[in-house]
């Protein structure tokens, strides 16, 4: 009995100390250091037009038509629809199986939509991402959209190609992960070019 009580007492003390130290002290110290040295990143890499790490919808939330051919588009789910309603956007993936009838239908609708604006879409442009809020597309995904964007904006294909290669980043240290374009930054650069 005495050992049981001693164990309970030890547990209670340890729980309090661990919660304070490994929960709050650790996280508050981390927040302090981050805010001191990397404030921009720690606050979410936010600029006037949005965060370079969170996707935006450039398509007017349509899944059957491309409504705004004057912009480069991200992946179809790059901005959760909830965001439009002013509720904080929740990250989520579609989680459809590789032999899902629903996935087949969704992708088919997007392929048709892209063909209508003269684009033969890459995989990324018709499939959803893991986070549901990714801001990135691959350089190839941007390149296939050039005919559409060029026609809608009047900017020549050659200048758009140069723009894409200028905005390409990623593959840290040359080999980690893949090369990608942040759609927001690409479209900001495009808007500057048109002015």
């Amino acid at each position, binding site marked *: 009995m005495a050992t*049981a009580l001693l164990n309970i007492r030890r547990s209670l003390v340890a729980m309090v100390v661990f919660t304070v130290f490994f*929960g709050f002290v*650790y996280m508050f110290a981390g927040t302090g250091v*981050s805010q001191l040295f990397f404030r921009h990143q720690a606050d979410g890499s936010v600029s006037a037009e949005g965060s370079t790490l969170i996707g935006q919808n450039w398509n007017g939330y349509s899944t059957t038509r491309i409504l705004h051919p004057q912009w480069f588009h991200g992946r179809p789910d790059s901005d959760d629809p909830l965001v439009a309603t002013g509720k904080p956007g929740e990250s989520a993936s579609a989680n459809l199986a590789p*032999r899902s009838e629903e996935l*087949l239908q969704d*992708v088919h609708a997007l392929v048709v939509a892209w063909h209508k604006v003269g684009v033969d879409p890459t995989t990324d442009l018709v499939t959803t991402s*893991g986070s549901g809020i990714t801001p990135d597309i691959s350089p190839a995904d941007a390149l296939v959209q050039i005919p559409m964007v060029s026609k809608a904006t009047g900017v020549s294909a050659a200048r758009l190609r140069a723009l894409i290669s200028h905005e390409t980043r990623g593959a840290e240290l040359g080999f980690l*992960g893949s090369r990608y374009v942040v759609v927001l930054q690409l479209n900001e650069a495009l808007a500057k070019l048109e002015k």
Partner: protein
Amino acid sequence: MDFLWTIVVLVVVLAISWRYLGSYMAAVFDGRVQFLAWAERPFYRLLRTGPDQEQTWKRYATSLIVFSALFAALGYLLLRIQGSLPLNPQHLGAVPPGLSFNTAISFLTNTNWQNYGGEETMSYFSQIGVLTVQQFVSAAVGIAVAIALVRGFSRRGSDTIGNFWVDITRCMLYILLPIAFVAGIIVVSQGAVMTLAGTVTVHDSLNGVTQTIPRGPAGFMGPIMQLGTNGGGFFDVDLAHPFENPTGLTNLLYIVLTLSIPFSLTYTFGKMVKSVRAGAALLAAMVIIFGVWVGFTSYSEHQPNPAVAAAGVTAQPTGNMEGKEVRFGDTTSALFDVAMTQTSDGAVDGANDSYNAIGGFGLLSGMMLGEVTPGGVGSGLYTILLFAIVAVFIGGLMIGRTPEYLGKKIQAREVKLAGFGILVMPIVVLVLTGIAVSIHAGRAGPLNGGPHGFTEILYAFTSQTNNNGSAFAGLTGNHAFYNVVGSIAMLLGRFAIIVPSLALAGALAAKNIVSSSAGTFRTDNTMFVGLVVGVIIIVGGLTFFPAVALGPIATALSHKFYSVMPLLSHAGMAFSHLWAVLR
């Protein structure tokens, strides 16, 4: 080519950590690392214990269980009163009872199965004071059990196996805290968020989009969740979220953090039992299986997605990108997810549910092997030691000698405890999956139809019983059935292996070490590595093959596309029949 470089860097970094982190951990648990003793001593005085007060295995286990039970209760309580606690800028209300119970058990058992989306369920107080704390503590408890078992091998004629309170404190203070803190700074510098300021609203004048973006102290939660092979992230999509895993560099860092302690513990083991070769043998068994799984899973994900191909996408040169992030790519995502399923971490950087059939099989089967390649922090080592004892026993039967492992005679009691520890997981997984597909509440869970729906259920129980927490996220788990049954799976998968492991530690510590002779069965050579790999594969393969055949293998061989549900009940019936036959 980039993928090959990633592998090369990973191997080099892990090799260095194996040697140096491994020996550092041995020093910590031997009490030779003292630089924070000034912080340790007053704490031990408060607990009325200390490094000189050694415990028998029963005392050790009792301390562990009382501590765990009370800590789970505290977690449950804090989640239930979340609405009245500070640090809640989004004004989130109390977490519902079933979900609070499931979450408290999930983080206590190092599982981090999440039946909720973090950013719209958990306040900052809960993320910090309940979840992050358990990511330290549950990791330390796992490592402590492994070290206790190792002491069973290294001591002779001893009735004690260490002091639970000292072991977990030293583990957190000297190992987990410093590494996690440094990694946190790197992750934030790459773009992870670390703020207590709540959401931010931005308006883009170019496209007219207004966004309210959730933020929070995610940057320092990621490193400890990975280092402790916990895997339960701040945001719903875990490490696919750009605010938690912003670049290819952080992605690799998270893989390294996850794999470093489980692999390095084999060196710690070798060092403590004075046979680094024995530790290297276990490492080799882990690496062989891990490497094969990385190979075929990455290959599978580099193949086209059948639904996307059928929908009219002419070529998929970048592999199956459904549910994957562009900044990581197909093969690196596969490497990440294999590392997370085989370490009991369970974090994801994409949607596992959308993996090709064989890729999904790679993730599922990695867990079915018992989480020993390399397994969770601590749990990987103590579980592979159970496999090693069974391997020694089988080897002993072949040559007709009383088996020994590291000079300890392996007798009936040891083999029984090891066998029990190994069989708990498959029994719990198969019985609970059988129940789930047989009743309506269980069948209501899966999102996808056909054999894939069955896989979602099987995956959920495999993941929870192995304390992994990885999810084929299509399963809607926040129902009474999955909340309660899942918690039972997690508790059994954790404590029904910990207790026999500690009992084994006690039994072994009491024995003498017999000196080896020419007839001794060697446990540090290629032959033994092969035997351990064989036992792991055969136990996993034989117990799970029928279930896997109904799930991912059926999906892989199929040429049809399935809508939600109808075929699932067939899978359920087939499974019940099979179960009846097997019995």
